[in-house]
């Protein structure tokens, strides 16, 4: 019944768009699965001599998981956006295929994480079908985010100098990925409550409106927190990401560029000062500004070999499974290629054409996210969707920008694509929340 209703609601559109949302979603998922199967087949053809395992089983499981998610969508969120889930399917598949190409063993792990991620997706969809229920949990979310970050700082183990992981029961978890979502939920609720008072200045100083201190205080605390993260985690990427998400949401809530400008200025000042005490960050800055000075050194080997790998891909790339990614001992030429540098592997094998497609997929995902934000009719939903869309897109920008030397390199993952359980599952939760907002918006609009 719900599907039929959805069909009438979009009847003003024409052609493919005239189909009910869920049917469009199904069509696009089938297309994504076809791409997945073709990709696996390409890798298998290129590497038949090495790989004994059958990737068709993996492709089959992948298909089953996505189709299950789709069926849940039909029941729980019939009116939600049709594009979010298929976009994640293509991104996840590209990542999985490249990880499979690096190591079938790693791909098995990643496959499990995708299944877990889709299970979490279904759980979130079912639990927060009514997105307003999440708003009530705002303080729980805020507190949980802080706890997760404190845990990371307190119990974290250093990998590559950055303190982003904790070990629980033999698993390495990156709590920051989940804290990010919780923080967006908290901020969305908090800013919806306070946006009037934040937006309306109570007095003028030098012609600039300043809000009451007690309203602005949380923002100052937030800035401080981001810098504490920078120093404590020794990672510029995470703190920059959290901070930019917060600033974007504040801008959406208040419309005051002053906050954004002042915030970025504060962060730049603080970061410059923090560099003095965070050696890992300083090394990353050196490797960013001039990695060619000593290409074998710790600072620069990874980034320079990554750039060679990207350049080698050219316009069309070597093809799935046909690039030169592994060295003679079977390790990746770029250290940690499957996590931090999966983008470089894609650039090598799929070329500029493939990279552009991947970046456009993030753009499409961001577009759907912001569109969901604009169609939502309540402040919390708008802020939540805008914050989540910013989170995914900006995270992709920071890590890829770091790889391309637009920014200092960071330890962030490429959403949906990089190897890693925390990253994959957290991003599926983001997709689920966006769709929950979308359901409510589309239903109310109709």
């Amino acid at each position: 019944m719900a599907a039929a209703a959805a069909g009438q609601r979009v009847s003003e559109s024409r052609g493919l768009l005239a189909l009910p949302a869920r049917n469009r979603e199904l069509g696009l998922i089938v297309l994504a699965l076809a791409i997945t199967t073709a990709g696996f087949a390409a890798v298998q053809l290129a590497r038949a001599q090495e790989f004994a395992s059958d990737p068709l089983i993996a492709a089959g499981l992948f298909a089953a998981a996505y189709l299950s998610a789709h069926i849940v969508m039909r029941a729980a969120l019939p009116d939600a956006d049709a594009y979010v889930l298929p976009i994640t399917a293509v991104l996840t598949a590209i990542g999985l295929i490249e990880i499979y190409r690096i190591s079938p063993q790693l791909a098995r792990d990643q496959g499990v994480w995708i299944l877990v991620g889709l299970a979490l997706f279904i759980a979130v969809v079912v639990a927060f079908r009514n997105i307003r229920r999440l708003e009530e949990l705002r303080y729980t979310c805020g507190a949980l985010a802080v706890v997760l970050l404190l845990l990371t700082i307190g119990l974290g183990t250093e990998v590559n100098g950055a303190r982003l992981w904790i070990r629980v029961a033999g698993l390495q978890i990156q709590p920051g990925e989940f804290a990010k979502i919780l923080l967006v939920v908290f901020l969305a609720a908090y800013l919806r409550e306070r946006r009037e008072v934040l937006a309306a200045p109570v007095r003028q100083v030098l012609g600039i409106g300043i809000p009451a201190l007690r309203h602005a205080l949380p923002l100052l605390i937030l800035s401080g927190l981001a810098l504490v993260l920078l120093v404590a985690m020794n990672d510029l990427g995470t703190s920059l990401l959290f901070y930019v998400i917060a600033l974007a949401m504040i801008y959406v809530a208040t419309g005051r560029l002053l906050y954004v400008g002042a915030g970025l200025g504060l962060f730049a000042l603080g970061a410059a000062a923090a560099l003095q005490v965070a050696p890992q960050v300083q090394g990353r800055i050196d490797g960013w500004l001039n990695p060619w000075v000593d290409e074998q050194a710790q600072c620069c080997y990874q980034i320079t070999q990554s750039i060679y790998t990207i350049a080698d891909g050219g316009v069309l790339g070597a093809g799935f499974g046909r690039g030169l990614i592994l060295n003679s001992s079977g390790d990746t030429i770029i250290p940690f290629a499957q996590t931090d540098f999966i983008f470089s592997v894609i650039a090598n094998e799929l070329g500029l054409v493939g990279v552009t497609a991947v970046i456009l997929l993030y753009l499409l995902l961001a577009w759907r996210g912001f569109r969901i934000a604009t169609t939502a009719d309540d402040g919390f939903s708008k802020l939540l969707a805008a914050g989540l869309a910013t989170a995914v897109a900006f995270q992709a920008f920071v890590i890829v920008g770091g790889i391309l030397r637009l920014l200092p390199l960071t330890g962030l993952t490429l959403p949906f694509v990089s190897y890693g359980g925390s990253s994959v599952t957290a991003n599926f939760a983001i997709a689920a929340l966006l769709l929950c907002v979308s359901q409510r918006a589309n239903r109310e609009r109709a």
Partner: protein
Amino acid sequence: MNARISHVFLAVCGALVALIVMTSYWQVVARGSLEARRANVRLVYRDLEIARGSITSSDGVVLAQSVPGRLDGRSVFVRRYPQDGLAAQLVGYSSLVAGRAGLERSLDPELTGSTSDLAGIGTAFDRLRGDTVHGDDVVLRLVASAQRVAMERLTALGVRGSVIVLDPSTGGLLVMASTPTFNPNDGLDAALSNPESPLLNRATQGLYPPGSTFKVVTAASALDAGAVTPDTSFPGPDCIDSGGERLCNYKSRAYGPHTFAYALVHSINTTFADVGAKTGRDALEATMRGFGFFRRIPFDYPPDQTLPSGIFDRNGNLLPATAPIDVPRLAIGQERLLATPLQMAQVAAAVANGGQLVQPEPVLEVRAPDGSVARRPTTVYLGRAMTTETAATLRALMRQVVDEGTGAAAAVQGLDVAGKTGTAETGRAGHNDAWFIGFAPSNAPRFAFAVLVEDVAGTGGDVAAPIAAEVLRALTSQPT
């Protein structure tokens, strides 16, 4: 709020588009210049796709070959050295990690099949088609059986040293041994950290005081200049005064009146100091130049693995021609004079070859993958080191060194060996550099050699001459 959401979206769009622009820069604009950078590991891996030619000794022993392997899903060739450390410094290595050295470096264009323009085009087509590119095979003049004897003898003594044997008329490099050696199959980490520097090719990079072997050069110079004849008489005291310091014979022995010929056979320092003074610095330096001193010996080997011989200052720099030197000490092979074993082998080879110096040549022939001969090096003459008459005189005198003088231990049954010993004191008692240079058979030399043993208690006659005898025996028992 919707307008502001659009603003954030526009900012996100800008950021993501910047990524596409930057990727285009790396993949399209900067691609060409990045491809050629030396630190680009991919460049080295790409070389593995070439079936590098083999390196074989003249007696058919494979010293280096490429065997099929796999790298990231593609067929590649891995370099293997079946004889391990037999001629490791000469052959060198071609490694992903350490780069290339030795003949693997100097012959790289031929081994990778990228020599002529025509071959280059063929190679490029092969690569485009995805066909395996085959390099040329190289056959060396090296005689593996004799090389093995040289390595075994040096290794058995547990010494650092070098043995070189040249074909004096063609420059053919028959033996080039250097100990300690390393196994290029095992990677270079251990060799690099070994304080005895096994990677150093002592034949071309080891600089040692030549001691009395240098008397051959002094004698050639004096005979050519007419400063002495074999019959010129000398007084033969135990010691003389030179440059304010005493200069003595071995064990400060006094000989009494004797001829110049006797002085060479018995290596009398006081006489040669006198001969040096009579000959003069200019003539002596001109003869040294004629033998190839003061510049790198030109041959098919990486130039940075070949050091020039000459007179060095304390910092290891070659002294300029104008620097003040003690000529009598130079004449007996002292006075900061340092020579590589290859240089001293060249001295012996020039005497053996009638005074004509030829360029050392490690390669017998280069064979294209189809089996045809791509290159067969011809003899390169480097000039005359002395007159034919002087060379004939020296051959006869050096024959006597083995017959009745200091080089008796080099005698080989049925082979008429000629030579000159050298025992260079390093300043510490019981730590000498022991030399023996020479050629055989003395009337029509087929082999010219230099043997150096670093830092031993014995003399050149005791330590180095028997090694020469063993290696010559291996060479003559070898069917030619």
